């Protein structure tokens, strides 16, 4: 009798275990970053792309104002795709560019060719500022209001994200 009870407990235990692991298998096992984050923007200092002058992040972002920070690079192909969307957003919101691990000559050539949507460009030659932002590649775009990150767009912007940004900053 006792062996039987023990055996049933054993079976139930493994069934529960199977259920948990089966559920677990359905979860994505790759990193899926959350896009809706109400986090404060990081404090950092960066060099200005044009003048090489050091600037603190507090001086770049003011309260009660919407900003887009766009991490881009001249060597990044998807950045070319999203460029037209950034140009279309230029009138609606201040866009800050973060030039990621790029050669200045190439970056300038890129901007001359495609036009600059940025009000200000910061340099990130070793990619550490992008990490302060919690980014993990290019392109990535953050919508900021009141020094808080409202939303993060991973990968190139598209028509949908453009409409969403316009709706959010109204």
């Amino acid at each position, binding site marked *: 009798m006792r062996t039987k009870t023990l055996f049933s407990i054993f079976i139930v235990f493994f069934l529960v275990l199977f259920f948990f692991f089966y559920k677990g298998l359905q979860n994505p096992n790759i990193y899926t970053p959350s896009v809706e984050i109400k986090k404060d923007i990081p404090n950092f200092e960066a060099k200005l792309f044009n003048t090489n002058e050091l600037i603190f992040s507090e001086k770049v972002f003011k309260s009660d104002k919407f900003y887009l920070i766009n991490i881009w690079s001249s060597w990044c192909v998807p950045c070319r795709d999203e460029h037209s969307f950034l140009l279309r957003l230029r009138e609606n919101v201040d866009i800050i560019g973060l030039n990621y691990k790029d050669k200045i000559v190439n970056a300038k050539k890129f901007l001359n060719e495609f036009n600059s949507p940025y009000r200000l460009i910061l340099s990130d030659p070793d990619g550490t500022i992008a990490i*302060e932002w919690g980014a993990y590649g290019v392109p990535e775009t953050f919508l900021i209001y009141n020094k808080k990150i409202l939303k993060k767009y991973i990968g190139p912007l598209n028509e949908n994200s453009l409409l969403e940004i316009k709706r959010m900053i109204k």
Partner: protein
Amino acid sequence: MKYLNFLIIIIIVFNSNFLNAQEQKLKNEITKNLRCLVCQGQSVYDSDTEFANSLKILVERKLDEGLSEKQIYDFFKEKYGEWILYDPQFNKSTYFLWLLPVLMFLLGGAIIFKLFIKKKN
């Protein structure tokens, strides 16, 4: 006096080497415990992606700033979530993971014990 100066210089050089080696060791240890988010399944230490290389620089910088190992883990956890740590901490979503082996051990032990006692009797 000349010898004394020479000795002091040698001591300083050797000590700084020792400190550098210690810091390098700690840096390696930390980067081995961080997951590269671009080529997942590799640690930051093993990976050579742009992301991992930047992370290595940042770890070094944070160590220079005097942050402890735990503070550095917390910093990255805040940015990227628990996922970036290879050594998950004990909390609500990981208690099953940590307690399961103990539970299995106890259950297995109980069964063996039962069988053993039964046989003996």
